[in-house]
């Protein structure tokens, strides 16, 4: 503060003494004192300066030029001199002081994402404008981006308002296409789209937009705008300089243009509905949610505008797009918007949310299940769903199959061909979305009346291609679709029924499950997702003992970001753990149909000195703990991000709600939840990453890494396999063992088992039931044999398991027996 007053006094004194060139030196010293940050009280110093008469300021300006050229001036001093020059020469008659230098500084600025308003770069712009020169579009772009975070500052926005050309920021492919392709008639409309800064368009905004569209023609606007949207998110036309700790700004949207994108989305929803519009908006939502390093989803605001726009369009295509996105989008805010949009539509139609999703699946021109024929001129196009893909084949006028699109069709039916090809793409996307929706139906525990189910599932032109490859329970009888009809296990046709459910293996005996697997194989049916081969997780005795929690997936080390996206994809809520002093709830999945909430307890692991965190302070890895179930309305648990116990903090002395005994959890729910958790561990565990051979930072995960293995056999598991190959023939149990692929198969008296050579996990064949047998961590008796070497503990575990399972009638451990 003392400084500010000192410089104010100096200005007065130098002016009185006529030492105005000297004042330039003082001002540069001031810039050093405030580190080039002319904000707050320093404003007063600048104001004092501007009060000086023009001739005095001209002399200060000359002084600054001298200082700029002086030998002792470094790059900082030069930059400060240029900015101060801009300030003092405001309103002075045109001059050519340091013009080239100013332009080169502006050029430097144009390669930045943005600058801080305290830098007062607007004075450079003002000086250029005063000289009557246009500002380079790239500089305009930087200024506009900077304005978006110029809080409580009026100078920069005031200058930015003068920069009306070009209407969009350069640097992004879509914006440059828009600038290139449109004439003056469009300028106002483009400028209007950039004013879309609110979450939702106001009536006034809509009105103005409609008025601007009018003279251009709605169809013309749609046809022009849609190709731009497809370019959003493409690599920038020129890269910006990325500073240390800065997110990947080159993959992010330009924030000024992002508003324009939002405006374009709103604009499209004002035009008459068209399938292309729905498609483009859906794609925009997905592009805008792609993750960018250091930033997360690229631009949720634009994604949300896309959803809002789709919600405003009253067409079947838009509804279908919303339903499709609802199965794809995991970003919470956008997912909520999608949910609300579908809910609104459901309420308007008097249907349930599930029903609206079922009804929203369009047939995309398919006339029967998975098939459509279209005549285009002389040729015929056959659109067929094969597996989970749509395939287009052609027959010529003479009825011969041809490889590619007939030339005549290309020439004469270009429009129809385009539409057909778009349908093929839509079907592909919708098939995967529907397959995921059906997968989620297990926990939704839906039942359908037979007639409705046939219409919306089995006989639906698109969904039918999936539904006919799944097993269904019709009035308690399992059935599958083969040879043109719904059939039972003995291939008896099943023609009617009243109530239908999706079949899940947990309710069925291993013999039945296997019989159905054979049935599917016999009929050559490949299921769209694991149903008959679905892993089943049954309650173990250890879990009965622990009562309210399962330790089955405890003590793993997971890559946090991978876990985070997997969790979202499987419908779990999760918060990224940051290395900060804060609490967070555990990852949890709500199961409203069952009135339950599943929790998987985790904690951040940053290493002893917190070195294992990202630039943004997020833990790279997590440690896992128990799986628990609570009533869905129980208060939230939370724990410190860096670890410590989970607890419920309750107000008013209320008692915390106890976790539910695992025995009370329906087997289907338990199995599906544990399957999710197994997936998290199986995929995100550092144990399955071969690059972790060194045990990670400081080798502290070495033991965990070596004891773990999933999926494909890594090198150590391959070695293990070779060893077993050599060892097994010598063992007493040799005739009960076979090595096949990734597993050691062991024939016991009760069952046959397969032991994974990587992880040592056991699956009971043939129904792939997970058998939980673990090394005893703290043997009470000295029975653990020891040999004077540290070998491959996993091989010992596998051998031990094989020995035990080969004589499975001799097992006495009740916690194992109960699983057999």
């Amino acid at each position: 503060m003392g400084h500010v007053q000192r410089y104010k006094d100096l200005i007065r004194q130098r002016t009185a003494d006529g030492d105005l060139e000297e004042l330039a030196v003082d001002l540069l010293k001031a810039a050093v004192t405030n580190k080039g940050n002319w904000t707050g009280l320093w404003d007063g110093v600048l104001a004092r300066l501007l009060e000086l008469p023009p001739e005095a300021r001209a002399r200060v300006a000359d002084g600054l030029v001298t200082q700029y050229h002086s030998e002792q001036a470094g790059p900082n001093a030069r930059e400060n001199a240029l900015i101060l020059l801009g300030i003092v020469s405001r309103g002075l008659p045109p001059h050519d002081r340091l013009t080239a230098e100013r332009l080169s500084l502006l050029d430097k600025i144009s390669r930045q994402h943005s600058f801080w308003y305290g830098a007062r770069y607007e004075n450079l712009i003002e000086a250029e404008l005063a000289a009557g020169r246009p500002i380079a579009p790239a500089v305009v772009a930087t200024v506009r981006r900077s304005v978006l975070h110029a809080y409580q500052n009026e100078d920069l926005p005031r200058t930015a308002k003068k920069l009306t050309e070009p209407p969009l920021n350069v640097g992004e492919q879509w914006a440059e296409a828009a600038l290139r392709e449109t004439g003056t008639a469009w300028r106002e409309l483009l400028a209007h789209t950039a004013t879309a800064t609110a979450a939702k368009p106001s009536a006034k905004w809509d009105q103005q937009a409609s008025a601007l569209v009018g003279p251009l023609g709605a169809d013309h606007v749609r046809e022009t705008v849609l190709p731009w949207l497809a370019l959003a998110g493409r690599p920038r036309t020129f890269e910006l300089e990325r500073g240390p700790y800065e997110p990947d700004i080159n993959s992010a949207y330009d924030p000024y243009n992002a508003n324009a994108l939002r405006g374009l989305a709103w604009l499209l929803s004002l035009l008459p509905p068209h399938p292309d519009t729905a498609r483009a908006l859906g794609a925009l939502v997905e592009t805008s949610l792609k993750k960018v390093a250091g930033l997360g989803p690229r631009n949720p605001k634009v994604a949300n505008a896309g959803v809002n726009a789709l919600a405003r369009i009253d067409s079947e295509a838009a509804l279908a797009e919303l339903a499709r996105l609802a199965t794809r989008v995991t970003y919470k805010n956008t997912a909520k918007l999608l949910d609300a949009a579908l809910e609104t539509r459901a309420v308007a139609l008097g249907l349930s949310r599930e029903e609206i999703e079922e009804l929203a699946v369009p047939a995309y021109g398919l006339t029967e299940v998975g098939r459509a024929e279209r005549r285009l001129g002389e040729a015929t196009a056959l659109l067929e769903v094969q597996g989970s893909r749509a395939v287009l084949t052609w027959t010529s006028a003479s009825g011969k199959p041809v490889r590619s699109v007939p030339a005549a069709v290309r020439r004469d039916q270009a429009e129809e061909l385009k539409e057909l090809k778009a349908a093929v793409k839509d079907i592909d996307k919708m098939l995967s979305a529907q397959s995921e929706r059906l997968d989620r139906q297990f926990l939704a525990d839906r039942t359908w009346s037979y007639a409705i189910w046939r219409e919306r599932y089995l006989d639906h032109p698109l969904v039918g291609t999936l539904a006919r490859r799944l097993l269904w329970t019709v009035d308690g009888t399992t059935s599958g679709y083969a040879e043109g009809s719904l059939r039972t296990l003995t291939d008896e046709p099943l023609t009617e029924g009243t109530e239908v459910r999706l079949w899940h293996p947990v309710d069925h005996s291993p013999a039945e499950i296997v019989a159905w697997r054979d049935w599917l194989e016999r009929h050559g049916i490949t299921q769209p997702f694991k149903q008959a081969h679905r892993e089943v997780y049954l309650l173990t005795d250890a879990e009965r003992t622990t009562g309210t929690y399962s330790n089955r997936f405890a003590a793993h080390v997971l890559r946090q970001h991978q876990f985070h996206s997997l969790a979202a994809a499987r419908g779990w809520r999760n918060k990224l753990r940051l290395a900060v002093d804060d609490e967070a709830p555990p990852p949890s999945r709500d199961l409203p149909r069952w009135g339950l909430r599943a929790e998987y307890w985790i904690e951040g692991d940053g290493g002893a000195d917190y070195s294992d965190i990202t630039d943004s302070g997020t833990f790279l890895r997590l440690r896992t703990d128990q799986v628990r179930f609570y009533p869905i309305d129980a208060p939230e648990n939370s724990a410190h991000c860096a670890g410590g116990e989970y607890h419920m903090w309750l107000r008013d002395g209320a008692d915390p709600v106890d976790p539910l005994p695992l025995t009370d959890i329906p087997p289907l729910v338990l199995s599906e939840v544990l399957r999710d958790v197994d997936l998290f561990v199986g995929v995100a565990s550092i144990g399955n990453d071969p690059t972790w051979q060194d045990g990670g930072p400081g080798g502290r995960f070495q033991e965990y890494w070596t004891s773990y293995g999933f999926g494909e056999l890594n090198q150590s598991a391959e070695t293990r396999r070779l060893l077993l190959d050599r060892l097994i023939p010598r063992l007493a149990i040799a005739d009960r063992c076979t090595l096949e692929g990734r597993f050691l198969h062991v024939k016991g008296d009760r069952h046959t088992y397969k032991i994974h050579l990587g992880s040592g996990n056991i699956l009971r064949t043939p129904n792939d039931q997970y058998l939980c047998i673990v090394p005893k961590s703290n043997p009470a008796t000295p029975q653990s044999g020891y040999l004077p070497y540290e070998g491959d503990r996993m091989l010992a575990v596998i051998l031990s398991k094989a020995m035990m399972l080969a004589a499975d009638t001799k097992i006495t451990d009740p916690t194992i027996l109960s699983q057999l």
Partner: protein
Amino acid sequence: MGIVMFVDETTSGSRSDGWGLEIAEERLAVRELIRRRVFQEVAEYNARTPAVFQGLVQPEDTERVLNGYALRTPRRIDPETQTELALKAFAGNGFLVLVGDRQVTELDEEIDLVLGTEVTFLKLVPLVGG
């Protein structure tokens, strides 16, 4: 009479060179074979009493450390007790014994010890349900 080679097969792929033990008999029960091995390694330990015992089974009142078992207080190990532990461990699948290319499973089984017979010990781990 001949030399019997005791090999501790490492489960990471390599084999220890093994160490020879002179055995006068031509036939021996598995029980006795294990006893001889334990007696030998205990005798070697007791002669030097290093901090870490490297043997077939963990002696009582010791801590597991890298490459062996640490004795809380340096003491002599009783070969008889240690043999008892080893036989119990064998019965409880604590380790496997291969004679030549064949696994032996019964303690009372008599085996032929021809010249250069290799006896392999393979460690197993105790298991529980989870």
